[in-house]
């Protein structure tokens, strides 16, 4: 087109001059200096063609392979799981991954944007899409690994969704990991280009892969410790067992490469507290060298049955080996002083003032009880029962027949657990260190004691009522795996608690619900809970075979595509249209300058 325009005859302005003699000579002189003059004459044409060439070239979007990212939206997934704390690469795999990520940030071209995700048990976006290298470097530098497994699937799904359909250039996802995560073969990588940068060289690790306590049928308690040597050489070390930080036992272990072993600590029936297992060994990963489990010493439950005679109930209470049952026809004089864990009032009215403890009220009502007695009804039928309530769980009330009952009206702090047609037939609730279960009918005037659910109901009541809120909250803790949420039971009236993690950092939590869900359990170790009316602890153990097996993998598979590991810096297609457009501008500027000079 440009050449065609040049071929067109220029419409020149006619101008009469006195004589063309001198002009003739001047023009002839210039034309005589061919071919350079010819070249000069067509310089504008050449420049315009050159600019057009660059423009077409730019539109074709050429690229070169280059280090770093260019004109790309790139997602960096940084594996922050426990295995990344391995020290086979100095100072640690995670630090190496961080420094490599910082290298990618340094190599970013102008206009590149990067998003950084850490993949632990939880996926976190630590820096949203930005081209601010300083902000990215600062965010990456502050990252720390966690003692959890790696939920790479969640991170990859997030990364793929963030880059999907954002640009015509295939998005790029760089995964800095040792591969300690589940297969991602069910995901679809789409057009994303995935760089898997393998972090890690070898595996020299011995781990506690499992830790648990259990009760035997004879009432004894055992502590089970699972060990595995993941390294390629024989390891000798000591297994140390502590009870509340007091040394309990030391066992010398020698494990062949790949060997798995279970150690059982028996005769712990009298132990009460936290048992910690620790491997005295120097290996790549220290997070899996320690684990804790809690033992509870069985305690007796004192039960007072105040009844004029109810064999079914008496037998049901006696079924539980923990109970120490005392039966009486009337309320003893020293009732307030004795401090029974559970008191059952069967058709006998309780006193106006009740001490703290658990109370099962059967066809009896108390002023401090959980419900007010309503209208009397003949042959009421049970419409529903709360299956998720610990009192009525696993029991079918549907076929229970009752001769006569008084409907109950639950107080605000109590809930109905057995619903009749026009009112409640069972209420449970706790207030001021007193917990109640109230049944508004005579057991002997119903067929409930004959049902299978009856002993379960009694056992449920013992568990619910004997463990008073105060006693429950001061009981020994539980152990969970790192990354799992912890459900903390909060006593009524407590508005705020503090949780101190294994690093010593104290975190205040406002109580909004019971149980309170605490999910900041990414460090392995003992967490202490403190607050008004609550003092407790729980332990988080890594206990993950996948994390302890720290040998890096060679390739990851996403959606059936294999992405081989590469130790090289991330290479991308550096698009050239930016520089080419600048070149077009430069050529056009020069062309304008030449044109002006000609004038």
């Amino acid at each position, binding site marked *: 087109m440009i050449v065609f325009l040049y071929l067109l005859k220029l419409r020149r*302005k006619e*101008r009469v001059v*006195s004589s*063309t*003699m*001198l002009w003739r000579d001047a*023009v002839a002189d210039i034309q005589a200096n061919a071919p350079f003059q010819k070249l000069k004459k067509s310089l504008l044409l050449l420049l315009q063609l050159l600019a057009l060439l660059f423009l077409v070239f730019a539109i074709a979007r050429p690229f070169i392979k280059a280090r770093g990212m260019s004109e790309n939206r790139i997602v960096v997934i940084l594996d922050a799981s426990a295995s990344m704390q391995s020290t086979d690469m100095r100072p640690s795999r995670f630090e190496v991954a961080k420094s490599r990520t910082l290298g990618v940030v340094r190599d970013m071209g102008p206009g590149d944007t990067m998003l950084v995700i850490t993949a632990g048990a939880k996926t976190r976006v630590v820096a949203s899409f930005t081209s601010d290298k300083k902000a990215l470097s600062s965010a990456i530098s502050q990252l720390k690994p966690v003692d959890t497994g790696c939920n790479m699937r969640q991170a990859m799904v997030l990364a793929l969704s963030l880059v999907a359909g954002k640009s015509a250039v295939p998005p790029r996802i760089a995964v800095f990991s040792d591969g300690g995560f589940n297969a991602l073969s069910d995901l679809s990588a789409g057009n994303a280009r995935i760089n898997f940068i393998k972090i890690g060289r070898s595996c020299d690790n011995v781990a506690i892969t499992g830790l648990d306590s259990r009760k035997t049928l004879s009432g004894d308690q055992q502590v089970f410790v699972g060990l595995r040597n993941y390294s390629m050489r024989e390891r000798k070390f000591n297994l140390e067992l502590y009870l509340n930080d007091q040394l309990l036992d030391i066992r010398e272990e020698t494990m062949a490469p790949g060997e798995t072993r279970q150690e059982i600590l028996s005769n712990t029936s009298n132990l009460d507290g936290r048992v910690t297992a620790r491997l005295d060994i120097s290996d790549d990963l220290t997070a899996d060298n320690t684990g804790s489990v809690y033992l509870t010493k069985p305690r007796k439950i004192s039960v007072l049955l105040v009844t004029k005679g109810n064999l079914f109930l008496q037998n049901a209470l006696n079924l539980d080996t923990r109970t120490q049952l005392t039966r009486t026809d009337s309320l003893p004089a020293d009732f307030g002083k004795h401090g029974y864990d559970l008191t059952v009032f069967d058709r006998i009215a309780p006193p106006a003032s009740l001490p703290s403890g658990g109370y099962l009220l059967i066809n009896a009502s108390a002023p401090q009880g959980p419900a007010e007695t309503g209208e009397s009804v003949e042959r009421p039928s049970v419409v529903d029962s709360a299956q998720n309530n610990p009192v009525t769980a696993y029991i079918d009330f549907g076929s229970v027949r009752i001769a006569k009952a008084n409907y109950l009206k639950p107080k605000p702090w109590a809930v109905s657990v057995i619903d009749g047609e026009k009112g409640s037939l069972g209420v449970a609730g706790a207030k001021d260190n007193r917990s109640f279960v109230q049944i508004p009918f005579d057991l002997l005037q119903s067929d409930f004691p004959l049902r299978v659910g009856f002993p379960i109901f009694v056992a449920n009541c013992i568990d619910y009522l004997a463990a008073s809120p105060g006693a429950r909250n001061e009981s020994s803790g539980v152990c969970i795996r790192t990354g799992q949420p912890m459900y903390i039971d909060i006593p009524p009236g407590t508005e705020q608690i503090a949780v101190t993690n294994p690093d010593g950092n104290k975190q205040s939590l406002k109580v909004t619900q019971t149980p309170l869900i605490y999910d900041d359990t990414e460090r392995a170790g003992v967490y202490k809970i403190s607050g008004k009316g609550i003092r407790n602890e729980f332990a988080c153990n890594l206990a993950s075979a996948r994390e302890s097996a720290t040998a890096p993998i060679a390739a990851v598979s996403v959606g059936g595509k294999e992405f081989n590991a590469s130790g090289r810096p991330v290479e991308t297609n550096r698009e050239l249209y930016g520089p080419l457009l600048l070149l077009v501008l430069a050529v056009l500027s020069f062309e304008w300058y030449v044109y002006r*000079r000609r*004038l």
Partner: protein
Amino acid sequence: MEQQTLPTREEDLLTPDFLRKIERLSLVSKRLFPGKLRGERRSTKRGSSVEFADYRNYSTGDDFRRVDWNVYARLEKLFLKLFVEEEDLHVYVLVDASRSMEFGNPAKLLYARRIAAALSYIALANLDRVGLAVLTGASSATLSPKRGKQAALGVFEWLKSVEAGGETQLAASLRDFSLRTSQPGLAIVISDFFDPDYQKGLSALLSRKFEVSLIHVLDQEEVTPTIVGDLLLVDSETSDRREITITQTLLRRYQQCLAEFCGGIESYCARYGCNYVRVTNQSPFEDLVLGYLRRRGMVK
């Protein structure tokens, strides 16, 4: 000064004030020319002026009053004492009136006519005989030589009637003029010399023993062109059409060509003893006549 020197109307070539100023001047002729009547110029003839010229032997019939008796007393031979004759000088002012002289503001032709008028007046005031010729095309229209200041008005009127037309053919028109003029004298050619064969015309004048002076009149636009863009230049005389694109290089080359063109005329003049004066239509007219022409030795 310019305002006073040049008349407000184009028809009035020169103002009376200016005429008074140039009355005292006279044209310089390097060579001696025989005249027709007695005048104030030294002639090639021997005559009766006070300026001694030569001796010659007495021959029969000579006037005894011219015998140098002092020489006879010393040598006892009769010698006649000869004196330089003073006669009038023939001055020819030749104005190029081709169409190229129409250009410029003021037009080169008007400028040329004013120069011609001034020089003619100077000559007439010095009792020289002034003849005018207008060079158009291959021929020349002439005004027969006039003498005396009283003829100035007629000369001016004739100059006013000169109109541009035709092509510059200096070779032909100057040859034509030289052939038609029997009495040689001072020939002042006022032209833009846009004719590659101008040298032939000048040679024709020189061969007829004219003393030639050239006044080269150029338009300021021709000296420093201000035209821009892609143009089709049309020659006003030959209608020659030339496509050009004005560039810095072309302008530089034009300047070189102009310098070569003017340098060529100047070197020709130097070689053949001609006076050469180059002016533009923007040169102050009074400075030109009273200063520049004086310095270049054309008037004194």
